[in-house]
């Protein structure tokens, strides 16, 4: 058992922390997310240059030999600055599918672009009626000669407006919600038949509804075995959950620190409101919730390589516990900021919004509580 970070991981944290501080100050972020593009490709290029985008890939695949713990370190720093650039969709999700299910040719074709920053991915898994069930798919991929033809509508595809490629889940067989018959494809976003409706999300990111109308792809677009994609999707989304939990931890840490600082500055009845015990104890409970979230994020991250049951239990425990902490810290931070907490001007409200939407990504608290119970 070891709870220490390696020297390399400490260096990555320090480097990223500096980048977020210098490149991601509040006014710069505000302008960037309000711009036409909604993100900063030059930040993405810097991340590639720093080796961040290649961190969790093995050296054999063209990366820098890191893993889930490195992704955790990276995402925590992104969470502190509310970084919008699509590390999870591109590096954790697409990267994960390629690492765990990709052929040598697919890795060769795509990982280099991810590491260099030239390929940006979005993960199109959710559907309007599917909620959090990855097998509840109306999108179909019908065999057509050697390849497939995709039809369907994917919902709230985070980062899709910025993406060059999409990872798409679709049904190649079986009935809706069957565990078998689910397949995973990688497609270029400019493929004929793909249309998108791009929009802004409440937490300052960009997403799209993505429509597939008779989109023809080759046999080489299939990742993993046909009809057996669900286990792969569960593995990759568990990795994405661990990374997203780390992001939430970073955001919670800042939200808590901002609140404590605000309580020191803000005076009512002639004294700082931080001198009131009723607020002090609530800020202590926020702190405890943060530490709880960090511990569960460690647990999920360190169990990603365990057997399936243990992995799923740890990841669901984290998504439940971190989700509960995020809800508590977000709401309490706004409450203790008083009226200023509900303005657009104060940063705290934006942390609140990110922490709110976090719960709906890859299954909310209720969903993961059900999964935890089912695993017994």
């Amino acid at each position, binding site marked *: *058992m*070891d709870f220490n970070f390696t020297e390399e991981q400490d260096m990555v944290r320090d480097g990223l922390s500096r980048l977020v501080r210098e490149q991601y100050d509040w006014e710069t972020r505000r302008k960037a997310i309000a711009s036409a593009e909604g993100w900063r490709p030059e930040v993405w290029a810097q991340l590639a240059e720093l080796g961040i985008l290649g961190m969790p890939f093995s050296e054999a695949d063209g990366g820098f030999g890191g893993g889930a*713990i490195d992704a955790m370190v990276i995402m925590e720093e992104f969470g502190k600055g509310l970084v919008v650039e699509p590390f999870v969709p591109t590096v954790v999700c697409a990267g994960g599918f390629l690492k765990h299910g990709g052929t040598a040719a697919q890795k060769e074709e795509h990982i280099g672009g991810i590491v260099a920053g030239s390929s940006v991915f979005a993960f199109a898994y959710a559907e309007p009626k599917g909620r959090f069930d990855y097998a509840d798919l109306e999108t179909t991929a019908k065999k057509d000669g050697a390849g497939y033809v995709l039809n369907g509508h994917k919902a709230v595809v985070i980062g899709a407006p910025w993406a060059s490629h999409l990872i798409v889940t679709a049904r190649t067989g079986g009935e809706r919600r069957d565990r078998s018959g689910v397949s995973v494809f990688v497609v270029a976003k400019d493929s004929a038949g793909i249309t998108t409706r791009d929009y802004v999300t409440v937490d300052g990111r960009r997403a799209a509804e993505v429509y597939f109308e008779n989109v023809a792809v080759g046999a080489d677009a299939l990742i993993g075995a046909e009809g057996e994609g669900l286990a792969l999707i569960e593995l990759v989304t568990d990795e994405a959950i661990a990374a997203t939990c780390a992001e939430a931890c970073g955001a919670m840490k800042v939200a808590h620190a901002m609140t404590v600082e605000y309580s020191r500055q803000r005076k009512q009845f002639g004294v700082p409101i931080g001198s009131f015990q009723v607020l002090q104890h609530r800020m202590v409970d926020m*702190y405890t919730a943060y530490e709880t979230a960090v*511990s*569960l994020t*460690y*647990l999920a991250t360190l169990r990603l390589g365990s057997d399936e049951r243990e992995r799923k239990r740890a990841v669901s425990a984290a998504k439940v*516990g971190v989700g509960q902490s995020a809800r508590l810290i977000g709401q309490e931070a706004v409450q203790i900021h008083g009226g200023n907490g509900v303005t657009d001007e104060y940063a705290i409200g934006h942390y609140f919004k990110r922490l709110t939407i976090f719960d709906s990504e890859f299954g909310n608290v209720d969903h993961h509580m059900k999964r935890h119970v089912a695993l017994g």
Partner: protein
Amino acid sequence: MNLEFTPEEQAFRDEVRAFIAENHPKELGDFGMREDMTREEMVAWHKILGAKGWSVPAWPVEYGGTGWTPTQRYIWSEENARANTFMPLPFGVSMVGPVIYTFGNEEQKAKHLPGIRSGEVWWCQGYSEPGAGSDLASLKTTAVRDGDHYVINGQKTWTTLAQHADWGFFLCRTDPTAKAQEGISFILVDMKTPGVEVKPIKLLDGGYEVNETWLTDVRVPVENLVGVENKGWTYAKFLLAHERSGIAGVARSKRGVEKLREIAANETLDGQPLIKDFDFAKKVSQLEIDLAALEITELRTLAGEQAGKGPGPESSILKIKGTEIQQRLTELTLEAVGTYSAPYYGSIANDTGSNEYAVGPAHAQHAAATYFNMRKTSIYGGSNEIQRNIITKMILGL
């Protein structure tokens, strides 16, 4: 970062497991579940560990500690919880012991540490008073210098298991003119000294585990003062931080959740096992999730301690979360046994020596008593509200 045991740690676990299997007194049955344990039963395991050199693992090696890593200490508590052993009581081992080896003089170390290690000498804690609970520094018990002695007068309360105690460590006011925290001294008292009187307090669950301790003109030699006169508050706070580490009780609670699952598998609801009921199963899952978080938090704290930090204010988090979980565990067990939570088993059996009221399934018989008993955990050791005050000051800096 990893959660795996190294081959050396696995070998250590096997060694510990084998030692417990061979040496833990089997004739004592399901230890820790009985309310009528004798002094001899309560110190039996302590004495065996003392002989083995394992009774004070966390102490510095020079005073008899084992020099185990945090992971080894984790394995040690896991294995003891697994075997449901009755661990050495904290009053000597984790309270006064560390104060004596840290602040005491050589004579005090030589006189008291061996008895704490071996389990021969039973200690009790004289901190709280009827008027000084959370506001401990308002304590009124006085120690007045008279030649080579202090003369102690006052009343202490909640003195746990003082009915068995050979020695006690007492906070006494030695300077009545100083500010609250500054006139307090830390004094060791032989409980057989004339003027010391221990009276039992009966608790909600029917048990007698705490006492009132009355001190009337108790003459104690001045060499029983630990450290510097009037600096006792520093030692008292040091002791409380030590008391809080390990108070989380993670390994025991993990064992408790297993037991709860067994009970819920044997109780029925709507014709199926209670554990199949989603509402109940969800509460068990929530408990397990909170416990998993606490376990990692404790391991992170231990890793920090190994890196040179003593038990700091983080131990307050462990105290709050650990006791909340211990209480929720007993609450869910109470819910699980349903109607058989009502029959009263506790002190009627104690008073009459009879078991005639033992109705219902065996697993139900301690559910209510344990639930009532464990309400103390969020009150003792500095109430959970006091822990929040500590975190406010020491971590939030407010």
